[in-house]
């Protein structure tokens, strides 16, 4: 009997290998009217990989992405975990109301999906999907279907939201790298110099002001604000 069970288990394992070259079509839409996204990183990985945890400090890799849009750190981290990775599927910035679709092929066992990108202009705001489990049936096979979800904007908690646009994007450097699109201001004195919550939390939004050449903020309060959700994700499991 034991022998039979082992054979059955091997057969099950074999059949799950057969369906493991699963393709997913992933569409991401920027739902905002005035915020841009830096190049996305999209990946499929195992259950024990996580880009971040709410309420905990950001990793250096996440900080690089959230403060400067640099996904190289997350890429290295995910490669070490044998993840399937797609870098920069939008071929550059994802403009307001824009969208991209990419196809990822899941290696065996990589049944969890993550993606992340920085919101511009912010100091360290980002949107992410963090380890979404691709639905499976009782036998472990992926369930074909179309799955839709909305993403909120988070704050990495690693940089004070001074809202000064000065080109700074390196981890720990104060300031916002850029405000693509319209109405980037200059000459602001800064909204704040401190970050009260240094763990990853829901972003409180940009404050902005109505002064393009001074005031507290270089961000335009009629253009660079948002409400959640800030992005939508549609996953098609074929």
């Amino acid at each position, binding site marked *: 009997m034991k022998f039979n069970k082992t054979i059955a288990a091997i057969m099950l394992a074999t059949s799950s290998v057969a369906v493991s070259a699963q393709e997913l079509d992933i569409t991401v839409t920027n739902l*905002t009217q005035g915020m841009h996204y830096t190049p996305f990183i999209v990946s499929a990985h195992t259950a024990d990989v996580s880009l971040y945890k709410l309420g905990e400090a950001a990793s250096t890799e996440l900080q690089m992405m959230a403060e400067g849009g640099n996904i190289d750190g997350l890429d290295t981290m995910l490669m070490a975990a044998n993840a399937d990775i797609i870098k920069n599927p939008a071929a550059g910035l994802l403009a*307001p109301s824009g969208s991209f679709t990419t196809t990822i092929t899941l290696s065996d066992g990589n049944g969890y999906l993550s993606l992340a990108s920085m919101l511009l202009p912010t100091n360290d705001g980002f949107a992410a999907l963090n380890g979404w489990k691709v639905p499976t049936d009782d036998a472990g096979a992926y369930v074909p279907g179309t799955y839709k979800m909305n993403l909120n904007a988070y704050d990495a908690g690693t940089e004070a939201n001074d809202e000064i646009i000065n080109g700074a994007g390196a981890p720990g450097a104060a300031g916002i790298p850029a405000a693509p699109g319209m109405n980037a201001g200059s000459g602001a004195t800064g909204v704040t110099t401190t970050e009260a919550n240094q763990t990853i939390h829901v972003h409180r939004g940009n404050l902005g002001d109505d002064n393009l050449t001074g005031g507290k903020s270089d961000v335009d*309060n*009629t253009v660079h*604000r948002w409400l*959640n959700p800030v992005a939508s994700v549609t996953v098609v499991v074929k």
Partner: protein
Amino acid sequence: MTSLNNLRKTSLSAAIAVSIALVGCGGGSDDPVVEEEVVVVPPAPTPVNYSYEVKVLNLTVAQPMSPLAVVLHNEGEFWKIGEAASVALENLAESGANTDFLADSMALASASGADLLMPGATETVTVTLVDTMPTSFTLATMLVNTNDAFAGITAKDISNLAVDESISLLTGSYDSGTEKNSELSATIPGPATGGMGEGFNEERDDVDVVSMHAGVVTIDDGLSQSVLTEEHRFDNPTLSITITRVE
């Protein structure tokens, strides 16, 4: 195949009816057989109503909603992120007028709310489609103390909704992208300006694509030209919607 089968059955029953009529006419008489045309009138089918009660609660502090526009349809979307708003949607989002929106060619049945839906208030609108089961549901309403914000949902799939079943939704707010969010007194039609601000204007001086709304800034939060105050701010969700199929 199904329609072909139906057609054959219909011809067959018509033929039977005709032959019975002929036998009836010729029964024991010397009169020549008069061929009468027999018209087979099928009994009129009882109309089937697909009826939905739509209960809507305004979740905002101080954003009355313009009369609700409720539409049943089988195809299309009434707006899409990243695409330009229709003129009917622009009108609804800038002025609150829903007449053109309800009359859209995609609409199979539609219904309007009675009046403004005030913050904290609930209204139930019933919409009924006869003989066709609708697959999609759309609801739109303007946040009237804004330039061009609207709330609701479009092309919600209701095809699996059985009688007495309901779907509950919390929905967010969109920006039609057709009017700059100046928050100037002259541009906002709601009670914040005593209804004095302009509603619909065919000029499109904003991004001209639909997106989620970023919220209002207000004079209390640093937009010095704004006629709005802190109480006009809102966050998502702005509406609670329950769709119940009653017939």
